[in-house]
């Protein structure tokens, strides 16, 4: 059995939200009796960026609520998309009169719940648009699947769209920006361990003492290949090869990267891995203009990490990534 610090698995999300809000009252507040975390920041008549999804991925998304990033985040149950009424409520509290832009990760549940919320909000006269993030290339995109999942790259989407909103861009401009951004961003992950949801007794999958799995998702979904544990260099080699195959040959060789810890992997290992990423990118004559290393989009206590590449097609991407924000965890 996996040991966890909690009181009751049924209230874990509720207590976590209270803990966040009590710890950071200057930045965020909870919409009472909901799973919605809203920034305390004064409304200024700008487009609001709202995100959300199942919990268990902390600091995503509530840790990115604040000036310059998200206006609100909706926290569902562990690994479970929030419901339409909660998302609707988040849209309403976030709206500053210029419309609300939703960042949705590509999962059946998220898509359906956010879609219903969007329909309801539009019925109430609020302008809503959205983008679906599907950066996880571990899953094949085809007519016969749900398509690629939304994973760690989502945090770059929050950052870049949050900056655009802060700059006063309209919802149409933000939509266009998002549509330019998504095709330039790819992620792939690997796990050293499976993950156990609070209250269950079994992990999502079990790996032997010397095994890793490439291409896992952030909800304990198994990946595309299981192998013996390798050196950091070899892990980077595999992930980078897989990622670079997905980018069309292009004269633009400037990238931003995320090395994202999945929850149980310490920073030391993440930086060893980041070092190999930097070296191998250089060997490939690719330039890294911005790096983010740390825990951003986790999967409970999973050991492992993911690598995200964002091709800097637009100078605005880099400008947005570099801007300062006032959130708990960016």
């Amino acid at each position, binding site marked *: 059995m996996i040991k966890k610090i909690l009181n009751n698995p049924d209230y874990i999300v509720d207590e976590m939200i209270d803990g966040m809000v009590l710890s950071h009252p200057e930045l965020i507040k909870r919409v009472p009796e909901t799973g919605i975390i809203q920034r305390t920041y004064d409304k200024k008549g700008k487009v609001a960026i709202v995100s959300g999804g*199942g919990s268990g991925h902390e600091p995503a998304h509530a840790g990115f609520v604040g000036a310059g990033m998200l206006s609100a985040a909706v926290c*569902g*149950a*562990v*690994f*479970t*998309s*929030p*419901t*339409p*009424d*909660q998302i609707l409520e988040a849209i309403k509290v976030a709206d500053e009169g210029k419309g609300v832009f939703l960042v949705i990760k590509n*999962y*059946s*549940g998220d898509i*359906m*719940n956010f879609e*219903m919320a969007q329909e309801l909000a539009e019925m109430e006269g609020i302008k809503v648009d959205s983008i679906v993030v599907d950066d996880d290339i571990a*899953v*094949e995109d085809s007519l*016969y*699947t*749900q398509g690629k*999942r939304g994973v760690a790259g989502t945090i770059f989407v929050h950052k870049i769209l949050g900056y655009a909103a802060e700059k006063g861009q309209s919802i149409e401009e933000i939509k266009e920006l998002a549509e330019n951004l998504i095709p330039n961003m790819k992620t792939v992950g690997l796990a050293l361990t499976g993950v156990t*949801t609070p*209250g*269950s007794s*079994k992990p*999502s*999958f079990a790996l032997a003492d010397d095994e890793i799995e490439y291409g896992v*998702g952030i*909800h*304990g*979904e*198994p990946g595309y290949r299981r192998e013996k544990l390798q050196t950091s260099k070899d892990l980077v080699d595999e992930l980078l090869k897989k990622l670079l195959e997905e980018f069309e040959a292009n004269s633009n060789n400037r990238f931003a990267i995320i090395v994202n810890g999945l929850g149980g992997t310490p920073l030391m290992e993440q930086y060893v891995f980041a070092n190999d990423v930097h070296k191998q990118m250089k060997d490939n004559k690719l330039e890294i203009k911005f790096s983010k290393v740390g825990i951003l989009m986790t999967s409970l206590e999973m050991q492992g990490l993911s690598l995200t590449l964002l091709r800097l097609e637009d100078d605005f991407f880099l400008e947005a990534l570099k801007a300062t924000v006032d959130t708990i965890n960016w």
Partner: protein
Amino acid sequence: MNIEMGIRWMELFNEEIQNEKDYLTQLDTPIGDSDHGNNMSRGMAHVVKAIEEQKPETLNELLKLITTNLLSKVGGASGPLYGSAFMGMMKAETAGEEWAKILKTGLENIQMRGKAEQGDKTMVDVWIAVVEAVENGELTHELIDEAVEATKPLKAKKGRASYVGDRSIGHIDPGAYSSGLLFHTMLRAEAQ
């Protein structure tokens, strides 16, 4: 179907969901994210609590109550799907349709929301089999079990299970199983 039967149905369905909560989660582990038991259990607990508190007096009131509670308490993929199903059923009931047509409208709404077709290894497979059987007046417990079991050899094409590709083969779909429970308890409620 009438209001008494409908309430009995929901009580029986809730009992089965709570009993089979762990098994549903277990089904959702190899090809999902281990939460279908929790999701359905949370949703159905709210449905029966709302029935007790609000005491719906017509089938239409009951269907409305089921819809709002499933939509606002389940989340994930199953929440909007079951929610859409009951929303469609409520509308068809308002329009005065008979039970077979009501169920069929529920199925149509699931497909409108989730875009799954027969054979995609989802709850839709069970709903299609059941709706057809109800139309022909030949719904049995065996038929339901067979429809649930029939999802096992399929490769998933919708939902989270589609991520594991060929490895989804050999596992019963959790949403198909919970829909099986829904229709087993419907039969039992009608028979009582």
